[in-house]
């Protein structure tokens, strides 16, 4: 998931769980059946988990732009020489 996707997944999770809780409480109270409330909420939890937990493609619509390999070569990582560990070597810049 990308950053936007993570934020979206969190919001979707919170809203879905609260909606299923209210729906469960409402139906259970009006019908007068406690198991109805519990089963509605349990079903809601499973559905929410299926939608928000796995790494679905629609959470990856704003993928991070990593640097092009050619651009990266022009800025090589600094080399650390183990043999000359006592002396500090300045890193090479271009």
């Amino acid at each position, binding site marked *: 998931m990308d950053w936007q996707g993570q934020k979206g*997944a*969190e919001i979707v*999770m919170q809203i879905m769980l609260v909606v299923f809780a209210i729906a469960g409480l409402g139906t259970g109270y009006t*019908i007068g059946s*406690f198991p109805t409330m519990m089963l509605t909420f349990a079903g809601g939890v499973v559905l*929410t988990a299926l939608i928000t*937990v*796995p790494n679905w493609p629609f959470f990856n619509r704003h993928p991070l732009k990593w640097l092009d390999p050619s651009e990266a070569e022009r800025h090589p990582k600094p080399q650390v020489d183990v043999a000359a560990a006592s002396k500090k070597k300045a890193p090479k810049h271009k």
Partner: protein
Amino acid sequence: MHSFGYRANAVVTFAVTILAVMCGMASLSDNFNSPSPTADVKVLNINWFQKQPNGNDEVSLTLNISADLSSLFTWNAKQVFVFVAAEYETPQNALNQVSLWDGIIQSKEHAKFWIHTTNKYRFTDQGNNLRGKDFNLTLHWHIMPKTGKMFADKIVMTGYSLPEEYR
């Protein structure tokens, strides 16, 4: 929301927290119920009335207990524990309560009942104060919830009395 495990943990913990809130609200909804139970207990017969070898009075009664407790059952009621107690005053104790019968009602359908029975538990005094004693019979109930607060109440019925002499 950074990894599968993180999101799975978030869903589960938030769901459990919400479940606790739902159970609290279910218990609060019991306060909207205004119950109207009725009960009547008749003493059909005094079977025997003796002074035991240890010096305590004991009496055996046949009771007819009828009640309609169906209005006590809400959606959050698991079962109702009901018992009948005899209450009276003696020189030693300001209040004596002796439980004579109890039962458990597990559904609204069984809440309207009558039962014809001798006392399930012995009606024994601490002493020999029962001759000619006036007593109340009180029907107590405890509504045991599925979640949350337990409510208890009672109906007091007065006007019962024991004979002057042992039989």
